[in-house]
């Protein structure tokens, strides 16, 4: 008797405690949501070079499907010379943009017109919601998209109830009729076909309890299910269930909830799934591994059909509709972009940039939405073409053994936005990110900095200043002797400053650099955006300074952009999980270098492509000329570099071995080839330098050049310092 009193009391106290605890847990539960990282949205406007095929490709990458009826978001319809589609609602930094029905007309490889189908009026510009390119996962590796009550399709709820808990709206957490029915069915079919647990019990099990199967745990589960039902509405329980349920595995990541499952199996939002697809995700509730539609499509299809049959049985679906749905194949997508390692180098950079402002916990748990600068169109083609070209280079260098490596950065010159980043020949996440971390001597890529330093003193230097391209021997501070040579081992005598850079003469450059002084040269490097302590060795003048491809890109961004520097940027904005603006990474510009001297250097860099060391672009990039750039090669051909730009885009490529063995490639035969392979289909435009107001143009003039001077092209100079004093002809 006493014992039973104690037992009742203890149980009572326990239940009271459990009741309080369960409320605290359920209400305080904040699901950890991974950060979602987005590419830059594709902007569509009249005049944009775009074909119908490319747009269909872009829409498909976003999970849009062809649909003649075009009845909701995420659908498109191809017509003869146009595409009609309905965008998805999406929240950007500037606010929510509603779904729009649009028609895009194509005309000679461009967008001709964009029409809003609801108002029949033209649209100036529209963006496609950005592609999800990655996620930053919580420690426990759960992937989840939170659905609100009204985001759960009715069909899904009915399918779920038909399969898992037919008495959901009648019971109070436990369904004794259901248990009996399950028992009966299981005995009849001699296997476990139905479970007796209600959705509430399943939720409790997933939510609060460990995985062990004991009698006590079962009792606890039943008690908690009853308590949960006492405090919360059916809708609250159902929504929690839809967000909690385990529905698949992707490597170490667990896919939780129907929203994530839709994204994982179909690459689109849950609201856009058809009935057969909703039936499939419900089929997975009973065993996401066993019924994995990618690994076991037959089992998955059988289970899906069973879901549809059950719905007919419950009167939720007509037999005809079920038949139609059952005839469809599963159509699960191969692998969504964010699960695959498509953008490992770029995501690595994004993570590093984010860690300047956020803790790892914020990134893993808070469901942040991160908007990046990645241009998926440019990156995809660059990646494909780079891999192909690198394989070709690997074959050419086969004799030296080892695996040839590469790195590449493509940016929008005018804003510093990083559009594509390649960190190496294989794209495994976690592999060495050479674009960010490989510091290598930059060779002749430094030369524009030296010439810029000279031309910034226009009273002393112009493009026609004679330089001595002659041998020299330097005794260094440490006692050793430095004897630089030209690449072709020939000295060219007296040459114009302009020709010395165009043809990348080492001796003339060293003479010039020593005249200027290493301090001045280093000063220009710092101004151009190199944030690093540099040693004052004369060999710096031939590029012994070791920089990463990113640093080189920043340096050339400053030059290509007329002296206006924008820090290289990978993130544009961050929103919180409720789409509230958190932080914007706005465009920053600094006038780092004087436009006049930069213009003179850029003029020569155009000549480098026109007839200097990068002249092979005359054939490989014939449609996009003029372009500007500089090749770089280091001792014994260990590093092959090219930095090149058009009007809109700038790219730096590097080719070499991780162990620093010689490559057999110069800048021109290695990195330049890679560059042109990557940039041919990038949308690069010919350079159009706008002449600063202090620039004049000089043609060959009798007073200036006596005797049989070679024909000189038109050359720019800084107006107050017209080259008139140094007469004489020099053959470059």
């Amino acid at each position, binding site marked *: 008797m006493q014992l039973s009193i104690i037992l009742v009391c203890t149980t009572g106290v326990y239940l009271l405690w459990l009741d309080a605890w369960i409320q605290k847990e359920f209400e305080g539960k904040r699901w950890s949501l991974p950060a979602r990282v987005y590419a*830059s949205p594709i902007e569509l406007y009249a005049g944009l070079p775009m074909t119908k095929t490319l747009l269909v490709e872009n829409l498909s990458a976003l999970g849009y499907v062809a649909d003649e009826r075009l009845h909701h978001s995420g659908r498109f319809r191809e017509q003869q010379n146009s595409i009609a589609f309905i965008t998805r609602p999406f929240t950007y930094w500037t606010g929510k943009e509603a779904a729009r029905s649009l028609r895009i007309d194509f005309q000679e490889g461009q967008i001709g017109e964009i029409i809003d189908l609801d108002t029949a009026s033209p649209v100036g510009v529209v963006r496609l919601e950005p592609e999800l390119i990655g996620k930053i996962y919580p420690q426990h590796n759960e992937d989840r998209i939170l659905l609100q009550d009204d985001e759960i399709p009715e069909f899904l709820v009915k399918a779920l109830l038909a399969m898992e808990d037919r008495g959901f709206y009648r019971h109070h957490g436990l369904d004794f009729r259901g248990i009996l029915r399950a028992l009966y069915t299981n005995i009849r079919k001699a296997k476990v076909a139905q479970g007796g647990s209600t959705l509430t019990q399943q939720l409790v099990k997933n939510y609060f309890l460990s995985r062990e199967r004991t009698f006590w745990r079962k009792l606890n589960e039943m008690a908690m299910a009853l308590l949960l039902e006492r405090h919360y509405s059916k809708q609250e329980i159902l929504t929690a269930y839809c967000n909690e349920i385990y529905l698949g595995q992707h490597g170490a990541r667990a896919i939780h909830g129907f929203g994530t499952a839709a994204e994982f199996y179909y690459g689109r939002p849950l609201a856009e799934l058809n009935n057969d697809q909703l039936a499939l995700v419900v089929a997975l509730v009973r065993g996401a591994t066993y019924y994995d539609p990618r690994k076991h499509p037959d089992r998955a299809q059988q289970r899906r059909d069973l879901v549809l049959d059950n719905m007919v049985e419950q009167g939720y679906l007509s037999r005809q509709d079920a038949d139609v749905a059952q005839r469809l194949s599963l159509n699960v997508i191969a692998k969504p972009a964010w699960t695959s390692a498509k953008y490992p180098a770029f995501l690595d950079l994004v993570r590093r940039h984010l860690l300047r402002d956020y803790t790892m916990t914020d990134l893993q748990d808070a469901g942040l939405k991160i908007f990046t600068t990645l241009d998926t169109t440019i990156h995809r083609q660059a990646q494909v073409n780079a891999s192909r070209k690198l394989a070709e280079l690997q074959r050419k260098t086969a004799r030296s053994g080892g695996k040839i490596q590469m790195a590449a950065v493509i940016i929008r010159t005018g804003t510093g936005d990083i559009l594509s980043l390649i960190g190496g020949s294989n794209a495994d996440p976690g592999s060495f990110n050479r674009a960010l971390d490989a510091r290598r001597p930059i060779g002749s890529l430094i030369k524009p900095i030296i010439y810029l330093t000279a031309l910034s003193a226009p009273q002393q230097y112009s493009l026609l200043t004679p330089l001595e391209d002659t041998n020299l021997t330097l005794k260094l501070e440490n006692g050793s002797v430095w004897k630089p040579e030209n690449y072709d081992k020939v000295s060219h005598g007296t040459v114009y400053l302009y020709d010395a850079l165009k043809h990348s003469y080492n001796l003339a450059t060293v003479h010039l650099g020593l005249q200027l002084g290493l301090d001045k040269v280093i000063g220009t490097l710092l101004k151009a955006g190199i944030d690093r302590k540099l040693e004052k060795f004369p060999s710096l003048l031939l590029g012994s300074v070791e920089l990463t491809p990113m640093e080189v890109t920043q340096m050339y961004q400053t030059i290509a952009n007329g002296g206006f520097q924008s820090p290289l940027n990978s993130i544009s904005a961050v929103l919180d999980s409720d789409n509230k603006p958190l932080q914007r990474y706005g465009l*920053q510009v600094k006038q780092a270098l004087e436009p006049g001297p930069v213009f003179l250097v850029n003029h020569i860099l155009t000549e480098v492509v026109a007839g200097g060391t990068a002249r092979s672009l005359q054939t490989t990039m014939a449609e996009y000329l003029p372009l500007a750039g500089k090749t770089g090669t280091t001792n014994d051909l260990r590093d092959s570099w090219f930095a090149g730009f058009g009007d809109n885009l700038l790219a730096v490529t590097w080719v070499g071995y991780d162990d620093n063995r010689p490559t057999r490639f110069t800048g021109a035969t290695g990195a330049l080839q890679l560059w042109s392979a990557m940039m041919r289909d990038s949308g690069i435009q010919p350079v159009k330098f706008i002449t600063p107001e202090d620039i004049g143009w000089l043609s060959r003039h009798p007073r200036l050049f006596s005797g049989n001077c070679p024909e000189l092209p*038109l050359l720019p100079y800084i*107006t107050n310092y017209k080259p008139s004093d140094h007469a004489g002809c020099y053959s470059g």
Partner: protein
Amino acid sequence: MLAVIPVETLMTQNNHLWKLLLVCLLLQACSSSNPRTTPVEDRTTAPAPPVISSRQPRVNVPPPAPSNPVNPQVPLDPAPAATPPAIVALLDDAEQAEANGNPDAAAATLERALKIDPKNALLWNRLAGVHMRRGDSQQALTMARRSNTLAAGDYSLQMENWFLILAITTNTGDAQGEAEARKKIEELRQMGAGTSG
């Protein structure tokens, strides 16, 4: 724009009365540019013309004499191109956003336009204006200068940029910058730009 220039400060420094004149000039220049900031095109009804002509300078400014008349093959800078409809639409959105008290959205929208057309001098000018009104003088100044390097031949836009630079340098006490801006404005005025407002 008035808010950026501390008029009260100017008035207390009685020797700076001429600055008030400049403020007036600046305001005049800004208000005169309004017809351009608000595109005349109605995007909701009539089909957009392929090219918006509102980018033409308001005043018919004769081009300056070529600096090198003996050299007909001197490379010519591209004439200021007409603003494409996409940019006009975004300029419009940005202006709307700022009018609604959301300068951050205005800046984001102008930056969105700059991704489409990074060398558009008008966009840099407008972004400089947003930064100035938000109190970021440094960015405003640099962007106005950037706009000027891209505005070759567009004297009225250059004039707007120099007024903006003048306002900022006056405000930050940068005497040298202020003098340069005044000189440029005078030069441009003599060429007939931007005075008809």
